[in-house]
């Protein structure tokens, strides 16, 4: 571990990373994933020392090989039952906090159900596209387009939900002031705990970028449409800059795998 984290060809290294992503997005157990990736890493190191190519080990199709490994590993439902409520709560805090700036919370039943469905679709979409991207040797452009579509997906679904909500009448849930305050406190506690746990500001930065521009712009003399445009622009520019910074700092520590 100290000295031997070495001499592995770029191709093998990439395969191991892709395998890890593939297994992760197939919902496998963290410990078992780490074990098989480490075992294969050991095999690759030995094989490369003896001049064998990666094809000699995994065969012609990386995807087939990943599938074969994946098929023998059980899905870790227990872990996912822990993660999914976490993700749903996270998504809800997202929506709730930007709405808090507009006053007390009211949602139609359709909206509440719709939020959960959208999160579900997005999770499934993420799993499918990550498996696809990691198992197939795609060029950067194709990889980027797939992830871009994935990123746009929730936005499109939210737009659809807003449209649907204006045409279909469902019972409306009013949370009132007390309800709103309680929900707000829960959301803040969750966000703080989440940020401490993951040691990352990502969620808080995203929420701030989504809700703060509009909030501050509402104090300016700009017209409604001008406000909306500037707000959206600031949000997207902010997210782009944040992602750029993240990818820069990530690249430097990317090499070490599990």
């Amino acid at each position: 571990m100290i000295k031997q984290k070495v001499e592995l060809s770029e191709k093998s290294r990439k395969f191991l990373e892709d395998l890890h992503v593939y297994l992760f997005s197939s919902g496998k157990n963290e410990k078992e994933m780490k074990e098989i990736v480490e075992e294969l890493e050991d095999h690759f190191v030995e094989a490369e020392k003896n001049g064998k190519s990666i094809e000699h080990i995994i065969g012609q199709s990386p995807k087939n090989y990943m599938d074969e490994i994946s098929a023998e590993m059980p899905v870790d439902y227990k872990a996912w039952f822990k993660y999914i409520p976490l993700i749903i709560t996270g998504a809800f805090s997202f929506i709730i906090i930007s709405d808090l700036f507009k006053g007390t919370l009211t949602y139609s039943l359709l909206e509440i159900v719709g939020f959960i469905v959208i999160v579900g679709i997005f999770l499934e979409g993420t799993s499918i596209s990550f498996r696809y991207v990691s198992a197939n040797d795609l060029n950067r452009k194709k990889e980027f387009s797939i992830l871009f579509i994935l990123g746009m997906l929730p936005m499109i679904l939210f737009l659809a939900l807003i449209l649907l909500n204006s045409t279909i009448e469902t019972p409306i849930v009013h949370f009132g002031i007390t309800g709103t305050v309680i929900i707000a406190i829960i959301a803040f506690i969750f966000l703080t705990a989440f940020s401490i746990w993951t040691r990352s500001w990502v969620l808080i930065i995203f929420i701030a970028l989504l809700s703060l521009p509009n909030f501050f712009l509402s104090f300016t003399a700009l017209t409604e449409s001008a406000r909306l445009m500037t707000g959206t622009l600031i949000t997207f520019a902010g997210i782009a800059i944040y992602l750029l910074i993240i990818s820069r700092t990530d690249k430097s520590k990317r090499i070490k795998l599990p």
Partner: protein
Amino acid sequence: MSTTTQMMKGILDGCLLAIIKNKEVYGYELAEKLADYGFDNFSEGTIYPLLLRMQKESFVTSTLKKSTAGPKRKYYSLTEKGEEELRDFLERWNYLQTSVNNVLNHETVTRRSGNDD
């Protein structure tokens, strides 16, 4: 194609069990041994899905041991259930081998004599 690989996997399973029974080994060692014995036309990585399954069915267990060169290495050893499975495999294999040889010996011989007529 897929049926032959399926058959091949069953045979490889048996060979892996036999090698592991003889000595505690790690993945790369297993692949090398198989290649030395003549199984050199399949990709080495094939053994890992098989090992994963044999672990799931508790035919083998694994322990991590420090290796002299670098990270910890996973060594496999046979369980009681694995020994049973190996015995079953030997039985199946002997039966199959005898039957196939019988068929081939008789049929190829009769055919040849038939052609001579």
